Structures are given as structure tokens and as C-alpha cells.
């Protein structure tokens, strides 16, 4: 097998010669994680007065609460306190942006599983058992679970939005051929291995200290303050690490922290709440299911002239982040292709489901898959190989370089990435052997597909594109870095430590990145939108610059040198012919009364988006990549395997090739799960049926493709990102669309590649078999 990481590492190391970045440093917590002493919230030693909370949830899907009888709950063994929305001293609504998410149901039931009351007891088992004993009378009202019914009832959580370039209707009418299609795109449960958990510890007077597993400590701080009706400066949120987040702890962690804080404040004791897995899956939002459709006008060569796409996000009962999520689906309906004159419409439908939320890709995947559906449809219509269709329709540098929202695609890497990947993966030769395989195999059929990814980097809510940091140098030369980003496994703290070490010219072992605390860096953005390193890395670098500048002036003045000539490297500081150990300079600076601590700040330049016109440059840059997947399907059962995957992905100048590769592999497999086995099923009465890990199947170890080649397209970002690296959290997720396209390719072989099969996602074995039977029945 090819040694892909090593190759990449060589390139990176040349870019970052003698530096702490660009190297495959191990995850900062790796040794503790493998030894079992990396501490998560539930592992923390508890204060001696800790009590345990659980929630009582609705078994109705929609209605008005007419009576709440909690006598049995109160009488249950070990119960200390029971609260409902009435007991909240401050705000009941803890919605992140637009109203609609009560911390406990406030008169109305919006979805099956909604929290109605919370119990505090002396043990977790007593709390959970008591929580089953509530008698809640609900006058049920008709519920809506799907997008069509919501459209019919005109139920939207937010207004619809449109993007438009040119006159799509007119150009469509003139096109030589038009094609239409629709696609049902499934949602996804996050399955962070560590479930939702919070520990609230009351402090002096009305102050509150909260440990939580959250991607957004500042928001938890704000919401805890609001439910308690205290000022923000009374609340400290501390977040060391999450056992996975993936977007599921961006807004969805706050409710549990608020409930813990409410009970802690009322009872003056520490309160821990940890959701059992089944409840976690029922009461927290998921990736939005979408119902999308397209119409394209093409010329006889399969080049798009006009595009109309409608995306319908099933948002659940409240807005949560759905405005931005559906926007991102719209921003990515082009993926890497020039849509010609285009019209993109996005609707945010309200249903009686848990409020769907952020999940890696944030709507991007549900939009991007439409672009790939369009490519497949064109290829089958024109008889082209799907790769040819894709190459022909890529953005190019001439006129065809404007997106549906008016942003110019500069420095487009996709033509090169696709051609390099097609070559390294032997695409064309394998295409031939697969055709032969399919002609000679009656039951098994193979499919092959290559798909690109172009993903916009930046929060589309402009104000979130800022970050703060706080860096301390101590008198033994050790350095502590703190920033607003949170560590959920993605290696952010490792990269931050590398950046800090690199700036001071010391080893990463001299740098510790501490837990994320709202009293160290305030008013931070969520760790989301792949932005963790881009934003916080720059903010930390900015803090380092300030300290270095003080040290440089101090050192230069000792030798009548210029501060700008001072260099930090190899644990030493140099100016002209003079050199001093870093630690010695730090100690001298301390005695010389020089500040060894600084905060840093960063805001992303260049970005703007005018929602009233649907035009702008919402993204600082794009991250690119492409993947090739080969699958084998069984036409008797619909079962299939992914035999081989090759990936070439753009991370700019990699800060840490091993961590970046880990994000790419992990994102790909998570995306593959979304499109294949992860099947969210709601009962028509509104209950989530796939509510545990026995019925909801994420990829297991045997699903990892036997051949899995991952290579970094290692070239510096042309924009001024941190050391010209690129964000890597979300983009690789969408590389998995090639698996879906390969499944369709295998099914299409039954029609000799003349028919594009309808294959909604997730493409379970059942759906694949149905598509096979449709194909065979239709011939």
C-alpha cells in the first residue's frame, strides 16, 4: 500500500521547515485517552453535596398541557425537588437566535419527547425512576411530521429565502434539453459517544460554575444567566473536552446545563445531569431531513445552461439554527459546478419533531448532494461517463466562475484535484474492468463514482467570525494558551499548541492548552463551521505577537539592537549575534517588569453577504477535495460493500498532517453512514423509533473500506489564513457522496447506464433493492 501520510508530511515539513507546525504531532490528550485518565464531565470528582437530575418527557407529539400532576414524582424514593417551567426565575426560552425553545415545556407540547419537568434526587437511578411517574394531561392537537404537510399548512419556522443569477426561467426555456428530479435526503443522529452532560456547582451568593460538554460555552453562560435571572459575570462555564460533538453540542448542550443550574440554585447543591442514551437520541435535534428537487437546462454536450433548485428543510418545531442551515444548503447547491442562470429557493418547514440542529456540514451536504444528483442525471441522459459530465461542468477561470450568490470562485483547485485523483485511482481503467465485471456477474454488480467537494469556509452569520485568546508565559518558560474554541476530538488544542510553540520557537511540550473558560476569554463563538483553528489560531497568534513584541523590545534594548530583528527559535531568542535561552529571557523580563501575558483577537476579513439581494462573498475561501468510491451490490438482497475509496483533499498547508488525515477519514466514514445505514425512523404518531444504538446503526469497524487511500493536496491557502492552512472539520464529510453515486452507478449498470435510478438517502439495503427492482421492472 502507498505510504500516503509520509509523503504528505514531507511536503508539509518543507513548507514549515524547522517549525512546530506542519508536523504530525500526536493529539495533546492521546496518552491520557488511551490510559483512561482523560477526564470528561461525568468522570470529574463530584462535590460532596452532589445530587442528580433527570427529565420527564412528553409522550404526546403536539398539544396543550392541561394539567400537570407530579405528586407521584415528589413521593418517589430519594426525590429532593421537582421543577417545571413555572419555577424558572428568569427567561424560560433558551433559543439560540430566534425564540421557540423553552427550557421546560411552557404550556404547549411541540414534539414527542419534549422535556416537561425535571427531578432532583439522591441518586441517578432514583431521579430517572421518579421522572417516569409524572401524570401530564395533554389536549392533543393534530401533528405534522413531513415537509409536504407543513407546506400545505404553511408552517414555517423562518421565512423562505431565494438566490438568483440571471434569468433561469428564460434560459431554461431556451435550453436544448431539460431534466428534472427530486430527492429525499435523510437526517442524521450525531451519536457523539459521550452523551449530553452537565455539572452545575453553586458558588457564593448567586454565582454559578458550570461544567458542560458543549461546543458553545459562551452561549451556555448566557442562557444559564438568563434562566437564573442573574448577570453574565456571575456565571463561569468550564469546558475541557467533549467526547464528540459534530454539531450536536452547539446549541443542544445548553438545556441540560440550564436545568442543572436551576436545580443547583434552588437547592444550593451541586447538580449533575446526564441523559441516558435513548433519551439523548429522543430529545436532542439531528441533522435536518430535506426534500429537494431540481430542474436543469443543458446543451447537447451536457453543459448546464440554467438551474432551478428547491430545498425544503424539515426544521422540527423551532428555528434553532435552521435559518443558517437552509442557507448553507442553498449556498452549496452548486457544489463545484457552474449552474448558469440559476434560481435557488430554500424553505424552512415547521414540523412536530425535535428541533433539528447543526451537524457537520450544516446543511451543506443536503444542498451539495443535489449538485451530484444533477450530474448523474445529465450523464445518464447524454450517455457520458459521469466523470466527463462533472469535469465539463466545473467552474472555470473564464466567465463561468460566479456562484448563484454572486461570489467569484477564485483559485479553483477542483480541475487539478479531479484529474490527479482520476489518475492516481486508475479511474478510467477501473471503469473498464467494472463494466466487464458487471457483464460477467449475474447477481453482484459493481459501481464506481468520483465526486468533488467545494465547501465555503466562514460562518454565514458574519458576527460569529471573530475569536479571542489569552496567552500566559510563566517564569519557568512554560506557556499556557487559552482560547474560545472547544476540543471535541478534532485536534484543535493540538494545533493551537503547535501554533503557540511555533511562535515562541519552543517545543509543543512547553505549551499547555487549558480548558475553555468563559472567564478567560469572553463572548466567544461556537466551535463550529470548521472555523476552530482558523479563528482561534489567529487569535492565539495575535496574543503571541504581543508578548513576543514586549520580549523582543526588552532583549533588543539590552544589545542596542532593533526589535524587529529578534527571532524566536530552538528554545532560544536571537538578535544580531546575540543569543539567550528563552527561559532566561523570560526570567529577566519578569524581573524587568515586562508583561508576560496578553490577549489576542481576530476577525475574518473580506466577508459580507446581503440577504436582501442574496448576493455577496459569505466565505473567506473554499476548501476542496474529491473522492472515488467503488462498491459491490447484491441484487438479491440490496446488501453492498464499499470496496475501495481514494481521497485527495485540500487542507492548504497542513498544520498537522496526521490530524488532518484523521478528520478526512473520520468525516468520510461519518458521511458514508449518513448516506447508507443511518436510518432515522419516526412512527406516524411522532415517536422516534430509531432511538438507540440497537436500531440506529452508524458505521462499524468492518465498514471501513479495505482499500482506503487518503492523500493531502498540500498547497498553501492563497488567503491569509493561519500559516495558510485550510479548515478541515466539515468538508471531508461530503466526500462520502461518491459512495451514494457509486451505488447508483451499480444500479444503473442494470440499464446499461441509460437510466439514473431514484435512490433516496439513506440508501439502506432495502432502498438499494427497491431501486434494483425498479430498474429491472422498468427494462
Amino acid at each position, binding site marked *: 500500500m502507498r505510504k500516503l501520510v509520509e509523503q504528505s508530511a514531507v511536503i508539509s515539513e518543507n513548507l514549515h521547515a524547522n517549525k512546530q507546525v506542519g508536523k504530525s504531532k500526536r493529539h495533546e490528550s492521546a496518552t491520557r485517552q488511551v*490510559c483512561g485518565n482523560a477526564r470528561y464531565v461525568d468522570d470529574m470528582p463530584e462535590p460532596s453535596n452532589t445530587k442528580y437530575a433527570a427529565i420527564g418527557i412528553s409522550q404526546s407529539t403536539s398539544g396543550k398541557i392541561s394539567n400537570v400532576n407530579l405528586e407521584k414524582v415528589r413521593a418517589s424514593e430519594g426525590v429532593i425537588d421537582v421543577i417545571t417551567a413555572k419555577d424558572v426565575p428568569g427567561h424560560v426560552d433558551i433559543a439560540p437566535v430566534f425564540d421557540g425553545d423553552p427550557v421546560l415545556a411552557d404550556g404547549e407540547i411541540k414534539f414527542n419527547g419534549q422535556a416537561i419537568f425535571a427531578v432532583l434526587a439522591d441518586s441517578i437511578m432514583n431521579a430517572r425512576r421518579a421522572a417516569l411517574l409524572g401524570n401530564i394531561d395533554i389536549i392533543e392537537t393534530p401533528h405534522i411530521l413531513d415537509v409536504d404537510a407543513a407546506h400545505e399548512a404553511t408552517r414555517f419556522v423562518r421565512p423562505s429565502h431565494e438566490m438568483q443569477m440571471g434569468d433561469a426561467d428564460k434560459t431554461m426555456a431556451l435550453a436544448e434539453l431539460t431534466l428534472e428530479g427530486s430527492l429525499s435526503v435523510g437526517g442524521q443522529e450525531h451519536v457523539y*459517544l459521550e452523551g449530553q452532560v452537565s455539572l452545575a456547582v453553586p458558588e457564593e451568593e448567586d454565582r454559578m460554575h458550570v461544567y458542560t460538554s458543549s461546543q458553545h460555552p459562551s452561549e451556555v453562560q448566557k442562557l444559564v444567566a438568563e434562566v437564573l435571572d442573574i448577570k453574565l459575570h456571575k456565571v463561569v462555564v468550564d469546558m475541557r473536552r467533549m467526547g464528540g460533538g459534530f454539531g450536536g453540542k452547539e446549541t443542544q448542550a445548553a438545556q441540560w446545563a440550564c436545568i442543572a443550574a436551576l436545580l443547583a440554585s434552588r437547592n444550593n447543591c451541586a447538580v449533575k445531569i446526564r441523559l441516558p442514551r435513548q433519551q439523548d437520541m429522543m430529545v436532542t435535534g439531528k441533522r435536518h431531513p430535506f426534500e429537494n428537487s431540481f430542474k436543469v437546462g443543458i446543451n447537447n454536450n451536457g453543459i448546464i445552461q440554467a438551474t432551478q433548485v428547491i430545498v425544503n428543510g424539515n426544521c422540527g418545531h423551532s428555528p434553532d439554527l435552521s435559518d443558517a442551515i437552509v442557507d448553507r444548503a442553498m449556498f452549496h447547491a452548486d457544489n463545484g459546478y457552474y449552474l448558469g442562470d440559476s434560481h435557488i429557493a430554500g424553505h424552512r418547514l415547521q414540523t412536530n419533531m425535535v428541533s433539528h440542529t447543526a451537524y457537520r456540514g450544516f446543511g451543506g451536504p443536503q444542498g451539495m448532494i443535489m449538485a451530484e444528483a444533477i450530474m448523474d442525471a445529465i450523464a445518464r441522459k447524454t450517455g457520458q461517463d459521469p466523470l466527463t459530465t462533472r469535469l465539463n461542468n466545473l467552474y472555470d477561470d473564464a466567465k463561468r466562475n460566479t456562484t448563484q450568490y454572486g461570489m467569484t470562485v477564485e483559485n479553483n483547485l477542483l480541475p487539478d484535484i479531479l484529474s490527479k485523483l482520476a489518475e492516481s485511482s486508475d479511474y478510467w481503467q477501473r471503469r473498464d474492468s467494472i463494466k466487464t465485471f458487471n457483464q460477467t456477474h449475474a447477481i453482484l454488480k459493481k459501481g464506481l463514482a468520483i465526486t468533488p467537494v467545494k465547501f465555503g469556509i466562514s460562518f454565514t452569520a458574519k458576527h460569529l467570525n471573530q475569536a479571542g485568546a489569552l496567552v500566559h508565559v510563566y517564569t519557568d518558560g512554560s506557556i499556557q494558551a487559552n482560547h474560545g474554541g472547544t476540543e471535541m476530538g478534532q485536534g484543535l488544542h493540538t494545533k493551537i499548541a503547535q501554533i503557540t510553540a511555533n511562535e515562541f520557537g519552543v517545543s509543543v511540550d512547553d505549551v499547555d492548552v487549558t480548558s475553555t473558560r468563559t472567564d478567560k476569554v469572553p463572548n466567544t463563538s461556537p466551535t463550529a463551521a470548521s472555523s476552530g483553528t482558523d479563528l482561534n489560531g489567529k487569535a492565539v497568534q495575535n496574543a503571541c505577537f504581543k508578548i513576543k513584541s514586549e520580549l523582543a523590545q526588552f532583549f533588543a534594548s539590552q544589545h542596542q539592537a532593533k526589535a524587529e530583528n529578534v527571532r524566536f527559535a530552538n528554545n532560544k531568542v536571537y538578535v544580531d549575534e546575540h543569543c539567550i535561552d528563552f527561559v532566561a529571557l523570560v526570567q529577566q523580563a519578569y524581573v524587568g517588569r515586562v508583561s508576560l501575558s496578553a490577549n489576542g483577537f481576530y476577525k475574518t476579513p473580506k466577508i459580507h453577504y446581503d440577504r436582501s439581494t442574496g448576493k455577496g462573498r459569505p466565505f473567506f475561501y473554499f476548501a476542496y477535495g474529491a473522492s472515488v468510491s467503488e462498491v459491490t451490490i447484491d441484487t438479491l438482497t440490496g446488501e453492498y460493500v464499499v470496496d475501495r475509496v481514494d481521497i485527495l483533499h485540500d487542507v492548504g498547508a497542513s498544520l498537522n498532517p496526521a490530524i488532518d488525515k484523521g478528520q478526512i477519514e473520520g468525516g468520510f466514514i461519518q458521511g458514508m453512514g449518513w448516506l447508507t445505514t443511518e436510518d432515522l425512523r419516526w412512527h406516524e404518531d411522532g415517536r422516534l423509533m430509531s432511538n438507540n444504538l440497537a436500531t440506529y446503526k452508524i458505521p462499524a*469497524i468492518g465498514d471501513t473500506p479495505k482499500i482506503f487511500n487518503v492523500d493531502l493536496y498540500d498547497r498553501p491557502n492563497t488567503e491569509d489564513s493561519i500559516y495558510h492552512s485550510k479548515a478541515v472539520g466539515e468538508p471531508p464529510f461530503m466526500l462520502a457522496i461518491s459512495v451514494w453515486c457509486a451505488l447508483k452507478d451499480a444500479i444503473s449498470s442494470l440499464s446499461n447506464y441509460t437510466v439514473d435510478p431514484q435512490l433516496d438517502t439513506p440508501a439502506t439495503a432495502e432502498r438499494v433493492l427497491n431501486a434494483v427492482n425498479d430498474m429491472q421492472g422498468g427494462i
Partner: protein
Amino acid sequence: MIEFLLNDELVRIEHERADLTVLNYLRDSRAMCGTKEGCASGDCGACTVVVAELNTEQASSRRLNYYSLNSCVTFLSAIHGKQLITVEHIGNTSNMHPVQQAMVDNHGSQCGFCTPGFIMSMFALYHSDKTTNTEKEATLARHHVTTALSGNLCRCTGYQPIINAALEACSNTPNDAFTANEAFTITRLIDINKNTDIGTEQLILPTTRALLKQALNKYPRARLVAGSTDLALEHTQQLNALDTLISVSHIPALSRIEQRPDKLVFGAASPLNKIHDVLTQYFPMLDEIVERFASLPIRNQATLGGNIANASPIGDMPPVMLALNANVLVDSGDSVRKIPINEFFVDYRKTKLQKNEWIDAIEVPLPESKNQIRAYKISKRFEDDISAVCAAFNLALDEKNCIKALSTGFGGLAATPIQSSLLQDSLIGKHWASKETLTLGKSILQDAFAPIDDVRASAAYRKTVVVNLWHRFWLETNTSTQQIATRVIEHA
């Protein structure tokens, strides 16, 4: 008393709730938080621990068997007389175990929450017998790894670095502190196992048939427990208290595995993983379904008797045992009666087992002729998933290639594991290679069952698939068609 080694420490427990799981014991009673709770239902593996037990061979060749299990669905009864090994014990940050070092070196942890579970599954693999010296060495090694880690979910890495770490760390002969201390550990475990007065007032561990009978009489409301992988869910998921439990796992006869000339006898408390080798030695084509039965840690605990007594319509072993014409030996403590398995399942999760009876063993008759046996499982995921449909066929042909006997077993298609007697009866005497036989079987199976729609599959899919599995069986067992590839995964 419950007695075991917790890592190196001898632990004696006199009083404890019967339904205390090993996971909660570690985390709550011992503040050993390296072992994580991900699901509390045996589905994710974050809580994986390793148990070392004395093998049952002669004292002179005493060795330790290391196996992984899910501590979240394990009661203390399962670790009596054994060494419970947790992630904190196998290494530390300044002196890591080879499997820990390999995980670090291969960047195998991201969020790290699943990592201790993976480490423990890898530790069990490290200490297992591995046969990698064949021509298919590379494939087999990877197959060993994916089997050993089949019960561990990781949501971050995509598994590739974990596979690499396991291949790197587990390919060699074990050589760590545990192998160095093995003789001493064996001595300590022998000492513990000398004690015959075992169990507590809530957790009854009879060691003989007579004591089991006595316990059942004395505690009429107690539940029988073997592997506990299903029973424990009543506690961890439904939050029920299980006040008194009687474990059948400490009666040696109930764990017997006998190979007789005409039959195989599997004691009801034999874990599935111990049955695996013997069963597949006689019926090699059952390898795939046994390997797809839950995950390795579950198979290390779950028993054949439990899977049959449970009588779930979606259990994987009942259809296989139906097709193999097994008999269930049912014991009352006074006498043993033999019930053909096709009469054993009465209704949804109801069997012929009477109160105060238990399953003693399952007898699998060995066919006189070389039968064609296949068992197929269809599920959303290959590993660690529950069947949407399970179909098992056992075909005896005469010298003219005509059907002498056919028995079947199906799961996921009715309220109980079920046979199709119509199929079995209608095809006797038919020529196996004839297309009419295929078609007749298809048309019978098309209408044989009225399955339900549920979270795993639609009724329509189940009906289609069972017909197509019959087609697959026909293709795979006719000499003129058996070269046609029919399976997307080929197990070694």
C-alpha cells in the same frame, strides 16, 4: 460472597444489589472512571473491560483466557472467580502497554471517549491465540482485528488508524506484565475458585443442578441469568430493579460442549463464542452468521441457551437451530425432557419452558449425509446488528440429486422463530437442479409469512428478501450455478 481480582486487588463482596452492573461498580463504587458509559445497552463498547479466567484444561497446563465484555450489561455474577482488568491497570502515561502505545503512534484517538473500550478489546486480542501464518495472512490479520473490535463504535476516526494500531500491536506473541505474572495470577484465581460457598443473598450462584433446583424453589420470584446481555437491559434501559438473580453460569455441566458421533451437545450456558469453533467445524457454512451474531464481546457473554430461552423472533440462533433440527433439553432438577426445537417456541417470546425448569442443553444432530446447509442474515449493518431477516436451510439430497429432506428456520418473519413446513413438505422428491424447484420454493415462500413493518425493515422487503435468499441458496448449492458470486462479503 462474590470474589474476584480487580486488576491486582482481591475483592470480596458480601452484600450488593443483584443488578449492580460491573460498569456502575467500577465508576460509582470504585471511582475508576476510565471505563465509559456510551449506551448502557451493549451496543457501543465504550465500557469494554477484559476478563481473564482459568481455562478448563488440566492443572498442569493451566492458562488464562482473556476475553472482552461489555461491562454495562454484565452483573457481578459474571466475574466471580476471575480477574477483571480495566484500562487504568494495563499501562499508564509514562509506561504504556503496547496496544496503548500503538494507538498513540497511529493517531487512533480523537475525542477519546471510545478509546478505553478499544484499548481493552485490543488488549484481549493481544492476548488471544492468533493464527496469522497462512497464505492469506494479511487478510486474516485484518479479519481478526475487525472481529475483535466489532463491538466498539468510534464516531471520529473512521477506524483506519485503529485498525493500523491493532495490526501493529497485536501481531506478535504477547509479552507484557500480564504474561510475566500469569503463573501468580493463576495461583490466586485457583485459590479463589477453591471456595464453594459462593454468591450473596441477592446474587445466587449455584454450582450444581441440585443447588439450582433448590434456589429456584427458595426464590420463586428470582430471575435466571446466564450471559445477561438481554436481561441487563431491563435494568439499564427500563430501570427495573432485579432484586434476586440466580446465575446458571457456575454449574460446570451447563457449560459442557460435547462432540459425539451422532450429535453435538451444547450446555445452555455455553457462551456463543465457545460454541463457534465446534459448530463451524461441523457446519463450516455457518461461519458468517455466527460472526454476524452481535459483536465479539456480546458473543463472549451471551449463551446459546439464553438466545433460545429468550425466544425472540429476531434472534439469530433459533432459525439456525430450527434448520439443524436441534432438540432442547429441559431440566426440572428431577428429570430432563427433550423437546424438538420446532415445538419449543409457542408464541411471541413464549416457550414450552415451565416454571422452575431451565434449559440444560441443546442437542444438534449430525446429518448422516453431507447436507447442504446455509444460514443467511440480512441487516442494515454487517456487524453488531439485529436481523431484519434470517433464513437457514438444511437440505439432504439423494444420489439422483433429488430432495430427500429439507428443514428450514426463519427469523424476523413471524411472532416466533419459525419453519416453513409447506416448503419442507412440498419439495420432497423434487430434482434440486430443476428450475421448477427454484420457482416452486419461491412461490411458497412468497406467501408463507406475514411479517411486520418496523424500524429495521418493511414487510415488503422482508417478503422479497426471503424469496431471494431461497434463490441464493439454490444458486450456491447447485453444481452448475455455484460459481456465480452471490455474497458481497466473504468471510474467511
